[in-house]
């Protein structure tokens, strides 16, 4: 894809994603620092590019700092932003603890701090707001889809969990279980960890298929992220079954490859973890700067369900350009 078409997509996306109207006037010309964790995943890369696009569309001068997974780099970056006298700071914190001092320094300098994607263990008055997704809700949306999709038919589900003990794995499991509770026709018969990776997702699914009568007893697979689902789809195909038809596939995140699987009819639903954490953050910031409206401490992003009816090819192309 050439630069011009990339820019065109980026621009059209940026306008589509935000309610630019409120924020535009108030943020024009402001300087905002953004301390990003790093680029450890495609989603993170997409979050970075969406944030940059949002800033550009709003006329914000975004100072970007990549912390390469280290908290000390983030703290350095934030101190740097304070020294430069920026108007606001966005932080995607790499860990939850150890932020009190640097956040207090920002507060002293009267620079509002907005947290993206993850929370911190610090007094709430040290930051303006946190924009994050509701992981339990994500699981529930996935579960609700399955409940609606199977109707009264019996459905045995196998679950591919995230890394054992990780917060998203616990929450997404809980949400899904809440959704299917009370629907006795749906039950989770097997649940194992695929460590959020494609390779493990495939390996675990291979095991499930062998264990459940060659896959004939499995009605659906619920994966805590799309990567594991993509692995599972390959395992289902290798077993001579049709993913999407013989075994339904529902997962969470909304990465490009799950949309290309949908185009091929091999995935049924995904719940988007939006990379657009900056949009709501800029909106809250604009309202705050305009008339001092204090936003809620937690702003929950939408957990939108995508199915093959939602133009998967278009979604794939859009997302691919974000650097997933």
């Amino acid at each position: 894809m050439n630069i011009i078409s990339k820019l065109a997509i980026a621009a059209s996306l940026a306008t589509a994603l935000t309610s630019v109207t409120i924020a535009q006037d108030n943020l024009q010309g402001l300087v905002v620092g953004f301390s990003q964790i790093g680029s450890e995943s495609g989603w993170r890369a997409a979050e970075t590019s969406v944030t940059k696009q949002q800033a550009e569309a709003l006329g914000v001068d975004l100072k970007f700092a990549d912390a390469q997974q280290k908290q000390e780099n983030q703290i350095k970056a934030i101190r740097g932003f304070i020294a430069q006298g920026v108007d606001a700071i966005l932080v995607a914190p790499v860990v939850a603890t150890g932020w009190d001092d640097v956040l207090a320094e920002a507060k002293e300098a009267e620079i509002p701090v907005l947290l993206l994607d993850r929370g911190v263990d610090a007094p709430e008055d040290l930051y303006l707001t946190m924009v994050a997704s509701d992981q339990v809700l994500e699981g529930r949306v996935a579960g609700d889809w399955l409940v609606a999709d199977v109707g009264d038919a019996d459905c045995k589900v196998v679950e591919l969990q995230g890394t054992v003990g990780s917060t998203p794995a616990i929450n997404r499991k809980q949400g899904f279980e809440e959704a299917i509770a009370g629907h006795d026709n749906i039950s989770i018969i097997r649940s194992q960890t695929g460590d959020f990776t494609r390779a493990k997702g495939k390996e675990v699914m291979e095991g499930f298929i062998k264990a459940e009568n060659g896959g004939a007893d499995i009605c659906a697979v619920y994966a805590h992220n799309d990567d594991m689902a993509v692995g599972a789809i390959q395992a289902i195909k290798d077993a001579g079954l049709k993913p999407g038809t013989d075994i339904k596939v529902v997962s969470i995140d909304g990465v490009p490859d799950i949309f290309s699987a949908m185009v091929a009819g091999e995935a049924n639903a995904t719940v988007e973890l939006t990379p657009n954490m900056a949009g709501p953050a800029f909106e809250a910031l604009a309202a705050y700067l305009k008339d001092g409206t204090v936003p809620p401490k937690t702003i929950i992003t939408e957990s939108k369900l995508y199915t093959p009816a939602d133009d998967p090819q278009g979604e794939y192309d859009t997302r691919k350009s974000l650097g997933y």
Partner: protein
Amino acid sequence: MKRLQLERLANPQLLALVAVLLINWLLFPNFFRITWQDGRLFGSVIDVLNRGAPVAILAVGMTAVIATKGVDLSVGAIMAVCGAVAATMVVAGYPTPVAVLAALCVGLVCGLWNGFLVAVLDIQPIVATLVLMVAGRGIAQLITEGSIVTFNEPSLIFIGTGSFLGFPMAAVIAVVLMILVTLLVRRTAIGLFIQAIGVNRAAASLAGIHSRMLLVLVYALSGFCAAIAGVIVAADIRGADANNSGLWLELDAILAVVIGGTSLLGGKFSIPLAVVGALIIQAMNTGILVSGFRPEFNLIVKAGMIILILMLQSPLVGTALGFFKRDSRQATPK
């Protein structure tokens, strides 16, 4: 009398493998069921062969390294780098043979780098290979730009998911590699030289062995094996996952070598038994998957089994049980 028979018929590694497979069978009665499907064998045992192949391949190179009293921590990261190279080149439109060859060359270069640090600069192996273990994953992320590079090139995918005479391609590659390297070290004097370096490098050098060159070669072999494993893993999932490909597999490979009876202090080694070690590890993993344990127990079950297997191999326990006696430090030329 009984002791003699056991000593001849079986060694502890094969016994352990059989035991793990039997436990799997008890937990999951269909474990040994193999069917023919779409021109390939299909079943849990085949899964063990297929999924165990990457670690088995790593173990082949790792055995040689450990036999020289070294260790190669960088193999997991090299896997990620080589997978990334193969995937990005195929996506960029290069033909599969070129991409695979490039990936193998990169692995070889990584191995030569390790060998240079260890043999020429005399840096301790654990430190020397730690450099690439950390840096390698970063390099892989640079190549893939942080995302999973997905490809649909059938010839490359075949390396990971294809089959040969019904057996998974990955397992076939692992067996061929194991046989070739075993022949190389056992039919020539190289194996003896490697053992000699492991037992006493200074003495080996004095005896006229080019220990420096041999060390470089051994690390190059390990890098090359890692490259093969990396290409297989990437081909298997049709994508190069720089963050997760080969993650912690260096430890599995070391464990496989240790289960295979090779001492971390160097010297006597066995490549086929290290491959058996890799199969034992994978048989446990697959067993856990089909048994339906809760995932919280995975690591506990694995740890318990490994402790048991290593205990069976300990000379003390071995003598006590009368299973076998081991002259652990004696380098016995064949």
